[in-house]
């Protein structure tokens, strides 16, 4: 039996989220499973609106386009900004 990390690597999954669907069998179980999956996207992120200078916004969109061309999927300016902020915050010492 494969471990979670082995499955994650084989599927190249970016994230693994345990679901609250104790018995996902049969039509009702699958509905519960689908509902649990629908909640996954909304569970771990919060929106934050921040003002940016126009030049910064334009360059961010330019970088996002370049990143999208370099990878196999489109990348938005908001995704790139979130990644930059999350990476900076993750490595910053706690204040």
């Amino acid at each position, binding site marked *: 039996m494969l471990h979670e990390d082995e499955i994650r690597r084989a599927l190249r999954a970016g994230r693994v989220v*345990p679901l609250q669907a104790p018995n996902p069998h049969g039509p009702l179980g699958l509905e519960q499973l689908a509902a649990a999956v629908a909640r996954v996207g909304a569970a771990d992120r919060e929106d934050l609106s921040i003002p940016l200078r126009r030049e910064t916004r334009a360059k961010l969109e330019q970088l996002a386009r370049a990143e999208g061309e370099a990878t196999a999927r489109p990348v938005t300016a908001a995704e790139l900004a979130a990644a930059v902020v999350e990476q900076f915050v993750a490595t910053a010492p706690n204040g």
Partner: protein
Amino acid sequence: MDASSVKPEEVFRTSLPVGASLVVVFVPSKDRDGQPIDQEYWVNEAPPTLGRLFRGATAYPRGKGVWRDDRRGGTLLTEEPVLVFSYVADPDLTTPALADLYRTLSRMGREAKQGEIGVVIDGKYFGITDYAEG
């Protein structure tokens, strides 16, 4: 009668392994911009892949749903995914089999312009956003 002596595979005269892990693939109905995709094409693509790898698969259409795309400013998208599931015997749930499944899902993610492709294996959601191969 001693219940422990009953062998279901003999009662039902089966020779195939009994599935142990539940693998569920979510086939979306819309792309990340909310535009309808050719869902039928992908519903027809997923079961043969799961069937080839895991010896069987069933597609289960559902009612309407909604999800929030946090990568698009929290836009709400109505979604009618089809669940394709397979009960997989332990020996069949291997790294090469999952890598093979990944290639189909990667192609679906890229060609159907998805923010993320979801697979559930034994109660855990694996979110795929890397569509580099497939």
